[in-house]
């Protein structure tokens, strides 16, 4: 009898080993090494003094903004979803421009739901800087390639490419709808917005992408904002922000997280930044004016519209509100069936409500966005 039971020993051992490895590997990855204590100011100085100009890495972005998940899970779902959205909008309005905007907006919205992985290559050592972001979708890929002044947006699912030649000085960051913000860009935005309205503290040491990092925690002093805390993991060696997590007020888990899962500080190969659209691709040429920078919330859908009318900022710090005057974009947004599903009608307009950001589209076409309560937006609209 005992010999029979011995035959099961390998199975038991294999089970234990696999289960042990499955538990132990994430644990050891989360283990932190002791870093010398630093004050918030020292960590801020570390960020400001960061001299990293070239790196490549993989960024994982997870959003739980309370938006319903768009059908992008399988195949080219995201591609076909946006295509059908665009097609029906152009039927409704007969305008190519608004259809394009709606498609771009739904593509941007797609990036704001669920989990996305992107590979980022940055080379700031030559000229005005090279950048390549590859959003890795299942069986598809969306690319942003910036070489010097030229910018390419490429979507393998729809086989389209946009070639943008900026007429004004280009921003360091392309503002295409395909943009997945790297932790670095996000951290700059939040640190900019921090100012005097924010409590800055340093949390415990964390490990991100296998590197030990300081955890800089920004807590807005204002109680009127939806943002509870922003946590930025700063690499202890280079000062490069490795992870940004935004937690909504009153929530315990981050509603938005953008984090490096791997990072390589060597200069990426130069041919990554040269792009020639492959045969069979629909190429749209576009001369882009200097993008209208909608600051405050990096997660704004309106952020992606480079040809938007001039926005107006009211309020200050974390509870500032961006107002976009009536234009074709907002009408495209409201007429898109996809977005119509996401918004809820309220008195005087439509409201797109997320855990971190509210967008209010008034019936007259004006659009208000901010990390504040819906009531504050409606009050701003009433003024």
């Amino acid at each position, binding site marked *: 009898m005992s010999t029979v039971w011995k035959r*099961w020993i390998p199975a038991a051992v294999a089970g234990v080993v*696999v289960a042990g490895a499955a538990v132990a590997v994430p644990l050891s990855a989360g283990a932190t090494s002791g870093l010398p204590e630093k004050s918030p100011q020292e960590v801020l100085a570390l960020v400001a003094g960061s001299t990293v100009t070239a790196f490549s890495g993989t960024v994982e972005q997870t959003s739980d903004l309370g938006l319903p998940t768009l059908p992008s899970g399988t195949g080219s779902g995201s591609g076909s979803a946006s295509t059908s959205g665009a097609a029906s909008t152009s039927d409704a309005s007969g305008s190519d421009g608004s259809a394009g905007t709606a498609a771009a907006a739904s593509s941007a919205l797609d990036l704001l739901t669920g989990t996305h992985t992107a590979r980022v290559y940055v080379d700031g050592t030559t000229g005005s800087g090279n950048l390549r972001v590859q959003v890795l979708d299942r069986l*598809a890929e969306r690319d942003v390639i910036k070489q010097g002044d030229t910018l390419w947006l490429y979507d393998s699912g729809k*086989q389209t490419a946009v070639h943008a030649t900026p007429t004004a000085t280009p921003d360091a960051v392309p503002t295409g709808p395909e943009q997945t913000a790297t932790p670095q860009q996000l951290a700059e935005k939040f640190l900019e917005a921090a100012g005097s309205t924010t409590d800055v503290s340093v949390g415990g040491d964390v490990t991100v992408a296998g590197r030990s990092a300081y955890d800089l925690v920004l807590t807005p002093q204002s109680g009127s904002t939806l943002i509870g805390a922003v946590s930025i993991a700063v690499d202890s060696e280079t000062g490069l922000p490795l992870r940004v997590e935004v937690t909504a007020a009153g929530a315990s888990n981050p509603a938005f997280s953008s984090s490096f899962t791997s990072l390589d500080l060597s200069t990426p190969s130069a041919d*990554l930044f040269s792009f020639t659209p492959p*045969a069979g691709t629909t190429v749209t040429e576009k001369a882009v004016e200097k993008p209208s920078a909608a600051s405050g919330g990096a997660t704004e859908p309106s952020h992606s519209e480079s040809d938007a009318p001039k926005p107006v900022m009211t309020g200050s710090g974390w509870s500032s509100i961006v107002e976009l005057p009536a234009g074709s974009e907002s009408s495209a947004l409201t007429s898109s069936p996809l977005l119509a599903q996401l918004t809820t009608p309220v008195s005087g307009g439509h409201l797109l409500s997320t855990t971190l950001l509210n967008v209010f589209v008034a019936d007259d076409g004006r659009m208000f966005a901010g990390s504040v309560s819906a009531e504050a937006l409606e009050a701003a609209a009433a003024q």
Partner: protein
Amino acid sequence: MGSELAVLFRRRRTWVMLLALALIPVLVAVAVRISSAGSSGRGPAFIEQISQNGLFVALVALTICIPLFLPLTVGVVAGDTISGEANLGTLRYLLVSPVGRARLLLVKFVAAMAFCLAATVVIVLAGVLIGAALFPVGPVTLLSGDTIGSGEAALRALLIAGYVTVSLLGLTAIGLFISTLTDIPVGAMAATVVISIVSQVLDSLPQLSALHPWLFSHYWLDFADLLRQPIEWSSFGTNTLLQLAYLAVFGTLAYGRFASKDVLS
């Protein structure tokens, strides 16, 4: 070992399954060729690229086969390994010969994996051949928008065939284990196929996202990571680790069951 492979590949059933798999790229290519006028922007990924480059037939065919046809055929072969012999009454004669049960199990597993490799290679080869016959063949456009020459494309096609074969390791091990549980091959085959479908259904439920990285079917379609520039190797590595873990668990379970089993038929 050689005789086991010979038995497997001499069976008419094996040939019919390989032929059916080879028919899929042919069907896809012919369908696209006939209807090439209307490109609706719908359907599986890559399907529009077929008309520009025949090599994509192989990829489309793989994408179509991975969710159902490959698990189906692999389930038939893996589920048949032990229970098929038991059902035919040949298992006890096999065990009379001076070969250990562990070795017998290993040979059966390797033969099943050989079928997986043959199946993927057949799909890729048939796809490339029919694609080359019906469509122009030229530089291949990768997902990243870069183009590579035909030689490198062939290399990547081989890599993809390897990736898909590795992806089927876990399912084959599960099929082998189930096959040791029963004397009825049809039951083992059906159970294996059902498990692969259940795994894919679980994988598509967003509420279970914590479970997804542990499902053996989770990385099946990530073979597309080999079509990026530069190649994204991380999914290849994760997939291989996961499949090896499944192989370790279910392989040893199969050994435990098979070695301690009283073989009566």
